[in-house]
């Protein structure tokens, strides 16, 4: 008999709005405490202290419009946030400040989250939806200069970009962009040439979210239908469907692969978080806590693997924090040590 799925480690309440995005920052040394940023539909960004499990700071910079992407930059002192007021803000959080120091105006009105990639010390690339509906723009930060604009050819018609993932191979220097589009296809862009390298129609419905593992060169995408697709990228830069998994209920809002590439978490419209083994997409657990759609999942970047956390933000205003499949965590949360000799 399999163990019943674990309960959340703890639950963060008090955003009083739907939670759309989550981002951990746990890299700091003592006495710095691990932080979780959350963006909600009322335009506020909460900064949670994971030690006290209380809100540290509340940032209000999007005019009450929902925040749907946050990411730390420059350690914990700077934060990028993207909101429905068509602005991407750069926050200065050092020494207790909380001011917007810079902002980019996006002309796009979609829901596509940006993607950030550190290319060198002090240099980042940020992909964001562009002015035209089907366009993706890549900026260099902090200079905000446009590196390229990726626009599919006129006859391709993939629709709006829905999700973006910038990545760079371990050995190469040239970064790539994976974008999921409205028509259900995933497109691999070469940033240097601004060309489509490969296009894979892996869903019937818009791709809601994707994540990519640059070690194994394979990625996963979820859409509003009831299928989770794993695809791989071969040496000829072709995307191929590797495996699909049929879900009980339709709709995946977010997917995330843990940093150690062991497990994969999905945020389901059916209120459930699902955990899969990343190697062969073996279903591992169904975390059923939320009472409404789960909007986002995120894994913490704790330096010690045993402390790694999974956070999920939901429409029911709550953020649940889980500790699951951690190599040395307590027996209650790790079935590894309670394995039966069968």
């Amino acid at each position, binding site marked *: *008999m*399999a*163990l*019943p*799925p*674990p309960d959340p480690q703890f639950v963060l309440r008090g955003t009083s709005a739907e939670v759309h995005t989550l981002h951990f920052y746990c890299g700091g040394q003592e006495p710095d405490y691990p932080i979780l940023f959350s963006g909600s539909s009322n335009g506020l960004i909460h900064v949670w202290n994971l030690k006290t499990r209380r809100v540290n700071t509340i940032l209000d910079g999007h005019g009450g419009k929902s925040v749907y992407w946050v990411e730390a930059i420059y350690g914990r002192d700077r934060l990028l946030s993207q909101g429905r007021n068509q602005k991407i803000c750069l926050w200065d959080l050092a020494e207790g400040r909380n001011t917007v120091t810079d902002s980019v105006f996006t002309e796009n009105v979609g829901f596509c989250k940006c993607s950030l990639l550190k290319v060198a010390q002090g240099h980042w690339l940020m992909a964001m939806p562009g002015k035209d509906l089907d366009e993706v723009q890549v900026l260099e930060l902090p200079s905000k200069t446009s590196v390229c604009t990726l626009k599919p050819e006129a006859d391709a018609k993939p629709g709006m970009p829905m999700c973006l993932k910038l990545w760079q191979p371990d050995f190469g220097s040239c970064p790539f962009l994976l974008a999921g589009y409205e028509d259900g296809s995933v497109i691999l862009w070469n940033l240097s040439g601004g060309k489509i390298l490969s296009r894979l129609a892996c869903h019937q419905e818009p791709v809601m979210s994707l994540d990519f593992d640059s070690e194994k060169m394979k990625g996963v995408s979820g859409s509003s239908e009831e299928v989770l697709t794993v695809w791989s990228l071969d040496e000829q830069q072709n995307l191929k469907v590797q495996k699909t998994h049929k879900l*009980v*209920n339709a709709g995946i809002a977010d997917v995330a692969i843990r940093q150690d590439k*062991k*497990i994969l978490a999905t945020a389901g419209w*059916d*209120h*459930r978080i699902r955990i899969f*083994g*990343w*190697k*062969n997409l*073996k*279903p*591992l*657990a*169904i975390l*059923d806590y939320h009472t409404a759609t789960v909007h986002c999942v995120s894994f913490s970047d704790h330096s010690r693997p045993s402390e790694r956390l999974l956070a999920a933000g939901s429409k029911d205003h709550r953020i649940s924090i889980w500790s699951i*499949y951690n190599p040395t965590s307590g027996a209650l949360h790790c*079935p*590894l040590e309670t*394995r039966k000799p069968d």
Partner: protein
Amino acid sequence: MDPEPFEVGRAVQEAINILSSSRNGVQISEALGTIKCYLGGTENQAPLKEREEFTHVHFSAFLRGLVSNLSPDWIELLTSDQQKELWDSFFLEGPADQAFLVLLDSIISTGPSFRLMKVISILEQFLQTGGMSALMWEVCHQQAQAGLPIFQETLLNKVVCLPDHLCNKLQGNNLPIFFPQNYFPLLATEIIQVLQRISDSLRGGLDCSISFVSQVLGKVCVHGRREEILNVLVPRLMDLTKVDCIWQRMCWRLVECVPDRWMEAVVCGFVQKAPGADVLSRLLGNLVVKNKKAQFVVTQKLLLLQCSYVTAVLQNLLGYLALDSLRRSLLIKVLKELLETWGSSSAVKHCPVEQQLYVSKAILICLSHLKEPEIESNGQELLTSMMGGMKCHLDSNLPRVRRLGMIVAESISSRITTDGPSLKFQYEDDDETRELKSLLQTAPLQLPVTDLPNAGNDSPSATPKAVSKPSGNPHPAAPAVPEEGSDLELDSDDDLIPYDMSEDKELKKMKAPVYIRDCVEVLTGSEDMDKWEATMKVLESLIRRNSATTREVSMELVKVLLHLEEKTYIEGFVELRKRALVAVTITDPVPVVQYLTSQFYSLNYSLCQRMDILDVLALAAQELSQPQASGKNKPRSTQSPCIQTVPGSDSSQNWRRIVDERIKSKTRHLAKGQSLVEPACGPNKFSSLAGHFFFPLIQNFDRPLVTFDLLGDDHLVLGRLAHTLAVLMYFAIHTVAAAAMGKSLLEFVWALRFHTDSYVRQGLLSAVSSVLLSIPSERLLEDMTDEFLETQSWLADVAEKDPDGDCRRLAWQNLLLMENLLKKLSVPS
């Protein structure tokens, strides 16, 4: 004139005289020695003619003389050697038939005495030394030259009835060899001996009649000793006929010569004992074609007139018919007759289910033996009878009969249309259906036994090998193919053990309504299937929680529910709807019940809806009549949709209660603590309502509507009605209306008592049980004496004659109840 006959006669007469008068041992032994010469076998034997004359004319008389002189002091005149040589040998070496007759006659006529003991020991020796085979051989031999029929008849009687005679005579002192279980096997081996001799003489070119052996066999079989004799005979014959065509012919002849009046017993015995159709075919030959009686037994009696044989017998029988081209025409004829029986609506109605099962099995086996061309040439006929039969089977109210019909029809249609779609029914598989289907799968029998078994003598032993070959797969399932991908990821995440994921169900998005009025709205108007489904799921609990609100809309709600159709598939829709209806009925009984009972007899309802009404009424009555603590621990109706309450069985619990009470009254409680569980008690809510439930239902059953005719085609509903009335009556126990209800229920039963449908009769019988259980016995016997007595006589009739086993059982149960009632009443007075 030839003086010799007188000479022999005189010598015998003299000897007899000496034996009876002389007291001199030497003289007696000399006389015996003289006669012995006539028997032959000694060195100084008499001339052949004299010997023949002696054996034909004087032997019996001489033996009688010998026996009549037997007494202890007389026999002591001879030494024991002389006794053996001179006295015993007459019986053991002389003509066996005469000796046997004399022995038996003297046993029958002698009382317990020394003589009887002596004769019996001689008879024992006679049997042990193969006397019977000598006897039969002699008769067979004579028959070839036309023997005496009366003599043979007597002999036959004595041979077959030997155990009876001896048993009667000896009572407790009988010897084991004369027990039927020993004697008949012995007789069987003797028969084989005779047959052996006959076959030898046939090979020698001599003619020989086998008919006496056949008669023995037939008479033994008809006397009920089939088992004993055939258990030995059949295996031996099986072995002997395997390789020898003379033996085969003899065996055929043996069965053919059995007189018609005993043919049935013999054929049935062979069919039962033969281990397979090929053996049966070898043993019987084309008997069914040659002998009318045997044909009747095989094609009619064994198949259509009884059902006690196991399936293997059927397989033997039909396989036997299929094995020869001459007999195949019979097989087709049999199949047609079987199908006629199977398809006759009166047979379906009046035959016990076991018989129908038997016929169905036979049909399936026939089908498995038929070949393509045969089916093609009879296809149309098969199709017609299949359609007819299917109709009357599907009409039946008994699920088992319906299923039998489905299986047989499916099988026929699959055989008729080898390509293209065939009939397919939905039913649940159980052991019976699987067995039936397997009958159809049995491969047609192996090669028929050739007419010259000498040529193909090893074929029977070869067949099992041939059969076993395809089953023995030299390659067992190949080891599981390694799953793709496992090769490149050996260190896969096996260490990640999945949690329990059984909770991962489809998510119900829709919120269920909270108010009953909303429910009504959703059920009537909404096109949103999710909402509709959610409503159905909460409806019952809503109704039960808000009884005041429910009363306001009860009529509306019950109308909606009654007409509700399953717009989209919902798990357990029927049950949900029924429970909701029951809940409404309980919350607001009077108007709802009035409405439901009136709708039961009105136009434009489907049978299903009418039966739903009945079910709802019965379930509601049950719930109302049960005491409960204000609906807290409401009895979840665990009954299946089909109500099968048989109140009659409750009588068995009565005695236990009485015993418990007696024990309680005799037990002294020294300290009375608090009793453990207070049984729930409360007023019986059903008592004031029983009439509302009952009378409108029973009123109109004999008034047919255009669409609904209870006394005609809709007997399924009538059966359900009878059952429901029985249930209502049962729950009306201890109510004021019970007596009146019982009276009209008995009238209802009386009106329908000869209904042809057994399901209806079962309903009526359980109604009678309810009446007996629910009405106080005084009322029953004083106010309804006539009905009571009438019912009793009807029950006695049913218990004896009804074709349906359940009906008979119920009737017995009722009779028992009645008897108990009468006893209870007579005890106080």
